[in-house]
Every structure is written in C-alpha cells, then in structure tokens.
C-alpha cells in the first residue's frame, strides 16, 4: 500500500508540472498530454501483465474510448470533458465486460491472439461503416470544462491539467489495486493457476476483473487522446497501436506505475524524432528496440532502477 507521504510527493510533482505548463512551449505540452494518454493505457496493461497476460489487442478498448468521445459529441452534442471521459471509461469497461466472458477463459498466446482478433474486428467495422466515419475518421468538437470554454493555448493547458488529474487518479488507484489481495494474486496466477483455484478463488473471475479494469484505463487513455488530437480514426484500433502499448510496457517493465508514464513519455519523444528524421522507418525502430529490450533487459528499463536500489540496500544490510 502507498503511504500518505508518497501520495503527497506524487501530487507535488504533478502539481509542479501543472504550474510549469504556462512557461512551456505548446507543442511540448501536447506531446506530454498524448504521452499521458498512452501511459494510462499502459497502467492497465501492467495489471494484466503481472498475471502473465499479454493483450495484443488493447487498442480495442483504446479506440472504443476515443470513438465514444467523438460520437457522443457528434450525435448527442455532449461537450463536457469530464462527462465525455466518464462515458468513454464506462463504454470501454462495458465492452471488456462482455468480451471478457470469452477472453477470460484463455491464457498466454491464446489470450494475446484472441484479443488481437477482437481488436481487428473493431478495426474492420470502423473502416467499413460510413456512419462511423470510415477510413477518414471523425473530428472531435472542442470540449468544455464545467461550462467554461477555453480557446487557443488555454484549451491545451486545460487538457494538460485534466490529464495530470487523470494520471494522479490512475496512479493512486492502480497502486492501491496492485497492493490489494486481488492485485497481489496476479503473481500467483502467473506461477500456478491451479494452486490459486485450490485456495478457493475463481481465476477466471479474477482475470475478468483485471481485464475490465485495464479496459477502463484504456478507455480513459483513448478519450484523452481523442480530445488532445481532436480527431479519431480507425488506425486507433489497428494492431500497430496495440503493439505500441505492449512496447511501452516491455520498455518500462511492469514493476512500477510511474515507470509506465516515463516509458510512455520516452516512447512519444522517440516517435516524434523518428517520424521527423526517418518517416518510413518507424516500425523498424520500434521492432529493433523491442527485440533488444527483450533479449538484453527482459524485465524492462524500470527494473534497472529497482535492481540498483536492491543492490544498494543489500550493501547497507551487510
């Protein structure tokens, strides 16, 4: 469980970032906002990852969240950012709850590939249907915040502060979940499911719960991304989007929640540079870094930090 001190520290760091926003170039704020949306999805992936589950189709929930924001605005005229995000979270969690009855039966590669197949179905539906914008996607109307409608740079700041708030909630919430009994059981599921069953716990229901939580986070991330980019398109449900999330999770490691956000930030920065310098080589870079990370730093970059800390404390004990 997290101590009050750590929560205060985290709040102070995020508050500091928020206060620094007006003195930061706008493009950087947009980039960080986008990175935080990826970070939210990765938080959800960590929950599954600890149970040995790797979803290759998390873009299903990400896109569900993003399209919920875009279509609620377009069809029902909903513009309040908080309401839009809440709707996106609910929709994504609902989709996960329904597909969870099938997905939660599976583990390992079956789980990975089935979730990939499901996300590709959504991609196929989005591309084919005119009412959902087809390949062009849908524009997202500018959101309002409790009736206020900031414009220009103010809108970017408002979204950034909103993102910081979401990150804080996700961090506290996910850390609390990972520390809870249900969260701690993830490692046990990974090691030996049958033993967990013998303890009288339904693994399937636990996996179903983990999937729904991770989908809610992915929906929040998708909603934030939709508001931040002001546009949604079927690419958000595509397998490369899911691949990006898995990539950040491997890069950061499943050890800590802050590492997920730092990893996501690193990912967005590298992507921005790569797209500028090597337009055709993005997947090449992504694949190569992924390969090198798995081969040489299998626990993720976050683990380097922890390993170092462990050696220091061991020395201290000796």
């Amino acid at each position: 469980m997290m101590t009050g001190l750590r929560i205060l520290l985290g709040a102070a760091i995020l508050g500091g970032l928020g206060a620094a926003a007006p003195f930061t170039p706008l493009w950087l704020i947009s980039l960080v906002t986008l990175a935080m949306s990826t970070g939210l999805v990765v938080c959800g992936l960590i929950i599954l990852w600890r149970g040995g589950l790797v979803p290759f189709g998390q873009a299903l929930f990400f896109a569900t969240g993003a399209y919920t924001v875009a279509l609620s605005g377009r069809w029902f005229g909903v513009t309040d950012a908080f309401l839009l995000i809440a709707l996106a979270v609910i929709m994504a969690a609902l989709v996960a709850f329904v597909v969870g009855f099938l997905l939660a039966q599976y583990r390992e590669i079956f789980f990975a590939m089935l979730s990939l197949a499901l996300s590709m179905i959504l991609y196929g539906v989005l591309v084919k249907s005119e009412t959902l914008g087809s390949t062009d996607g849908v524009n997202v109307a500018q959101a309002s915040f409790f009736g206020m409608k900031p414009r220009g740079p103010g809108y970017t700041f408002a979204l950034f502060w909103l993102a910081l708030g979401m990150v804080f909630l996700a961090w506290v919430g996910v850390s609390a979940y990972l520390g809870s009994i249900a969260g701690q059981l993830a490692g046990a599921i990974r090691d030996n499911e049958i033993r967990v069953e013998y303890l009288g716990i339904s693994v399937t229901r636990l996996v179903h719960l983990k999937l729904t939580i991770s989908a809610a986070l992915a929906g929040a991330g998708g909603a934030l991304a939709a508001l931040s980019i002001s546009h949604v398109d079927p690419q958000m449900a595509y397998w490369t989007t899911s691949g990006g999330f898995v990539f950040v999770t491997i890069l950061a490691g499943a050890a800590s929640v802050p590492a997920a956000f730092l990893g996501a930030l690193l990912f967005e920065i590298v992507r921005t540079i790569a797209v500028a310098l090597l337009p055709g080589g993005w997947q090449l870079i992504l694949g190569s870094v992924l390969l090198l990370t798995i081969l040489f730093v299998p626990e993720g970059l976050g683990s380097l930090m922890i390993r170092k800390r462990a050696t220091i404390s061991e020395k201290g004990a000796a």
Partner: protein
Amino acid sequence: MITVIAIVTDGLVYAAWLFVVAIGLTLIFGVMKILNVAHGAFYAFGAYAAATAIGLYFDRGWPVAGGYLAIATAAIAIGLVMGYILERVFLRRVYGRDEVVVVLITYALFLILEDVLILIWGTDGRSAYQPYTEAGSFTVGGLPLSVYDIGLVGFAGLLAIAASYTIKKTTFGRLLTAVIYDRETAAAFGVDVSRVYTVTFLVGAVLGALGGALTAPKISVTPGLGVEVIVLAFAVVAIGGMGSMEGALVGALIVGLFRAGAVHLIPQLELFSIYAVMALVLVFRPQGLFSRAQPRKI
C-alpha cells in the same frame, strides 16, 4: 442452386489458400511451441518475390508454363533465406523461454520485416496477374471457374496428403511426432531436437512464402498484406486446434465455406463471419476441434 455452387467453389478456393498459409503456422507451433507472428512476413515476402519473379519472367516473353515454376522457385528461395536467418540469429537465443516472450520476439521481427519490405519494394502496389489470366477459365452451369483456382485447390489437396504421409510414414515424420509429444524425452532418446527445429522452421517459412506467392497473381500486391493473413491464419489454427494438421485442414474448410456463404448472402458481414465462427467453435471447444488433452500441472 447457382448460389450454392458459387458458395461451395468460392469456399473451397478460399479454404485452399487458408490451408497453405495455416499449415506452416500450425506446424511451427506444434513442434516448437512458437506462435510465429513473423509468418505474416513470410507470406508478404513470398508474394512480393513472386510478383517480381513473374514480372521479370513474363517481360521476356518466355513460355507461360515456366512462369509457375518461377513463382515456386521465388517462394522457396525467399522462404529458406528468411527462415534460416530468423531461426539461427534470433529464435535460437530464446528457446525455452516463456511462450509469450517468444511471441513478442516474432512480433518485433514482424514489425521490422514490414518496414524492410517497403525499403526493398517501395510503397507502390504491384500486380502480377499473368499466371492467373493465362491459365484461362471455363464455365460450369453458367458459373465461370478459373483454372488457376482449381489448381490451387489441387495443390492444397496434394499438400495435405504429402504432410500426412510425411508425418505418418517417414523417419523424419516419426522423429517429429516424438518431438511434438515430448521434447525432452525425445532428446534423451537421441533425437537431434535442434536439427528438427531448424528443418521445421524452414519448412514452415517456405509454406508461408508459398502461400503468399500463390496469391500474388490474384491480388494487387501492396504493403500491409501480411497482417490480415496472420490474424486469419490464427483463426483457422485456433478453430482446428493449435499444432494439429487435420485441424488446420478442417479449420480452413470451415472458415472458407463460412466466409464464402457470407460474401454471397450477406456481404457486409464478410470479415465478421470469420471471427463469429471462431468464437462459436471456441465457446464449445476452447482448445479447438483437434486438440490433444493436456495434463494438469499442479
């Protein structure tokens, strides 16, 4: 009536294509326990290599029959080269690690190869329709049938027989069965597991490339064609049972006929029908139709 015939013939042609792609995937999984996402890259490279070979061959105006040989040669060559590099340089390092980790390795390789493909062949589409049109067509009961498609079905049938013969009757097939059943025991009895792995991976790679090469004359060859294939082939293999050859055949037939039915009756549901049938099968038989019982490890 004519719709029924159309559904059956279209379904068989589609099933034949699916079988060629899926059997390589299921073979590698059955023997090596690797779900090879890079199979999609074998397919895409096979298609591009065949399109290039066809272009070079037919530009010179050489006899048509040799064009088919050119397709096969291109596919086998690229499959062997890619399979060898992937197995020796990358997969060899991760044998024995978590299945999911190995999937991620092949996924990373797939990402890299997708871009390498564009670096080699560019982003423009290619067409290599000559072998398809030159083979001609005839009509049965008012329904045009392409000779090339019939050849494809015949090829898939031969492949099924050859695979079954190899596994049941030849020495290598028996070694393969031993490794599939229990790798460690097979190694203890002196089976060269490492060599079996290499050969299996090469055969799988060639089959993937061949699947792409045989499809090249029927479609416009464009980047990104490997993705759809890996998801479809996975659906086929999941229906049949991972690692089962009979399963791949039956899975291909089920998916092929279902899709053809959807295309002719409710075209909007084409893509959806495939996953719907997969979900349906998996609800009743979660490990696929032809899966072996797994022991519980407590």
